[in-house]
């Protein structure tokens, strides 16, 4: 592989890499004829991102017609090449990326002003292909908005917030912070923001649903979209199936695929406040906000505490939610191109304690056909993209 990025595109490439670094620690590179994809995935396989750069993005793009090449590089090393974005814009005229198969490294050469050349040799490791399989056309709910809208929404949530729940109705979208366990609910601050459909460039809802995913991983995409001014498209379905966010223009396409909490019918029953689509808010008048009944109940008790007149809290006998280690509790769905496997859903009336699980993404292993294609869903991570070389990697 041998390609050259010039002018403003160097900064775009750098921003994409910084964006990917918010997802995982390694950058997967797999140059192809139709473009250069750069991918990253997090350790629990619940977040995946891919930026695909078309050949036209580069001022020169040549790949050898040998067998397909893939590798992964420590993302911090690549970030170090493109460290200071502000100075990149001012000083770097072009960036030459070259693959050296013999020495197992990729060379990044920055051609800067005044004839200065900065050369970085980054070693890579061979890797399996990493590719999430998803079909944007199959999603029930599709939205597109200017990045400013989402950035302004996300600002209301604390930077440390892990999970956010997005719910939609025909003409509204709600963002709420998601609070994990019932115990925290009484102490946590709850934030909710409502957006109207006409704030979006495109708002198509076919299923009223709500999904919960990790907000932190999304922020990387928001930063990228805001700086490039590209509108963000959002696709989601029912809880459990991943949410996809993407930005596109003529020479690049960025896709962020985030796993969502799988919905549990038992859980939903108890959590009335966090129903799929919130009821219209009660009329906002003074008389409605009366907590005298609470006060009466409280005054008669020895110490202040939640009263019996509050909304029904789940009785202690109800199973509590254990956050299982994500790795162990994946619900894997593997779609290969050859076969469609039916996934076994958990029976809705299961007697066991309801488990909250993050649905993992689907990963097609794009290797030559092997027995891996027919692996049962139960074998959690076996089929997923390369983890066999997860031991310490030389930088």
């Amino acid at each position, binding site marked *: 592989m041998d390609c050259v990025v010039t002018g403003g595109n160097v900064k775009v490439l750098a921003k994409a890499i910084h964006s990917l670094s918010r997802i995982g620690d390694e950058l997967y590179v797999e140059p192809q004829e139709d473009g250069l994809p750069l991918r990253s995935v997090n350790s629990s396989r619940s977040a995946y991102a891919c930026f695909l750069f078309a050949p036209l993005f580069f001022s020169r793009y040549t790949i050898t017609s040998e067998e397909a090449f893939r590798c992964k590089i420590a993302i911090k090393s690549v970030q170090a090449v493109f460290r200071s974005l502000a100075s990149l814009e001012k000083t770097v005229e072009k960036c030459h990326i070259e693959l050296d198969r013999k020495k197992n490294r990729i060379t990044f050469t920055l051609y800067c002003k005044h004839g200065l050349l900065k050369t970085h040799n980054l070693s890579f490791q061979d890797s399996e292909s990493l590719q999430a399989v998803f079909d944007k056309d199959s999603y029930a709910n599709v939205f597109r908005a200017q990045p400013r809208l989402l950035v302004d929404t996300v600002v209301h949530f604390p930077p440390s917030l892990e999970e956010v729940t997005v719910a939609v109705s025909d003409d509204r979208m709600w963002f709420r912070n998601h609070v994990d366990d019932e115990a925290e609910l009484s102490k946590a601050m709850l934030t*909710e923001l409502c957006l109207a459909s006409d*704030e979006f460039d495109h708002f198509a809802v076919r299923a009223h649903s709500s999904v919960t995913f990790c907000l932190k991983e999304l922020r990387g995409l928001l930063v990228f979209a805001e700086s490039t001014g590209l509108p963000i498209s959002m696709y989601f379905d029912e809880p459990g199936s991943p949410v996809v966010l993407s930005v596109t223009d003529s020479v690049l396409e960025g896709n962020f695929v985030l796993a969502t909490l799988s919905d549990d019918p038992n859980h939903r029953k108890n959590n009335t406040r966090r129903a799929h689509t919130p009821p219209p808010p009660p009329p906002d008048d003074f008389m409605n906000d009366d*907590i005298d009944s609470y*006060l009466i109940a409280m005054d008669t008790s020895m110490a202040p505490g939640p009263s019996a007149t509050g909304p029904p809290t789940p009785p202690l006998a109800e199973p509590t939610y254990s956050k299982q280690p994500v790795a162990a509790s994946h619900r894997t769905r593997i779609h290969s191109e050859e076969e469609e496997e039916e996934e076994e859903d958990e029976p809705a009336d299961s007697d066991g304690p309801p488990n909250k699980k993050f649905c993992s993404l689907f990963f097609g292993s794009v290797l030559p056909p092997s027995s891996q294609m027919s692996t049962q869903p139960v074998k959690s991570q076996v089929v997923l993209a390369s983890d066999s070389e997860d031991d310490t990697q030389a930088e």
Partner: protein
Amino acid sequence: MKFRGKIVDVACLNHFTRVVTTISKLTKTCVLRLTPDNLFFVLSGKVANGGVGMWCELSQANFFDEYQMEGVSPEDNEILLEVTPENLSRALKTVQNAKAVKVKLTKKHCPCLTIAAELPTLSSVSRVVTHDVPVDIVPRRLWHEFKEPIMPDFDVSVYLPPLKTMKSVVDRMKNLSNFLVIEANLNGQMNLKIETDLVSVTTHFKDLGNPPWGDDAASPSRESEAMAEARVDVRRLQQFLVGQQVNPSRAMCNIVHQGVVHLILLHEDVSLQYFIPAVA
């Protein structure tokens, strides 16, 4: 028991947010006391806080365009809530550009102060963001702990030097010792002293002036040069100085010799009192 307030003016919202942010820097939790005319943020000087006490008084009319409340009963027309001011501060900071901000006492999964803001948008429908901050209702039998503190019988009262200057001095002293002595006299002089085995450092402030409390205050027979002093935990003093975001119109310090340091900050529509007990 009901409470509902609405802030429409941007400057008022900004000012209110800054007051709440200052409080959040002074203490993790405190009691918010609502009366028909005022709001108070109170920290009662219990041993658990290291005896530090705080009393912040705001006149509601200066901040709220609409303010309605109904207390616990007609005779006790007040509401006392235990809150975490940092949550309030965080919620308020994100809605500075709102068209209107409502603060209400509500009952969600538990009693909450709900901050609901209407944000400006280009579309026909306003964007509404709500923050539910959980609070604990303080029962009437505990109200006596949150009364207005009595002015201590101080020995000396003096105006404070510029808070920024004081802060930079105290910041450096904090690195040298855990305890600091504040002393002042009726001649407008104040010293901040630390003393360790290796070093002692004193910063002198002169010509500060003494507030005219009147004849019934500090004994008139007191020598103007005599210093009243109190030894305090330097971190408490630093905490007080760190939170101050606006220059007050008046800043005073009353010292009860080896008793307590009483700091008073007066702004146009907010007054803040902070009590730091002296340690041996």
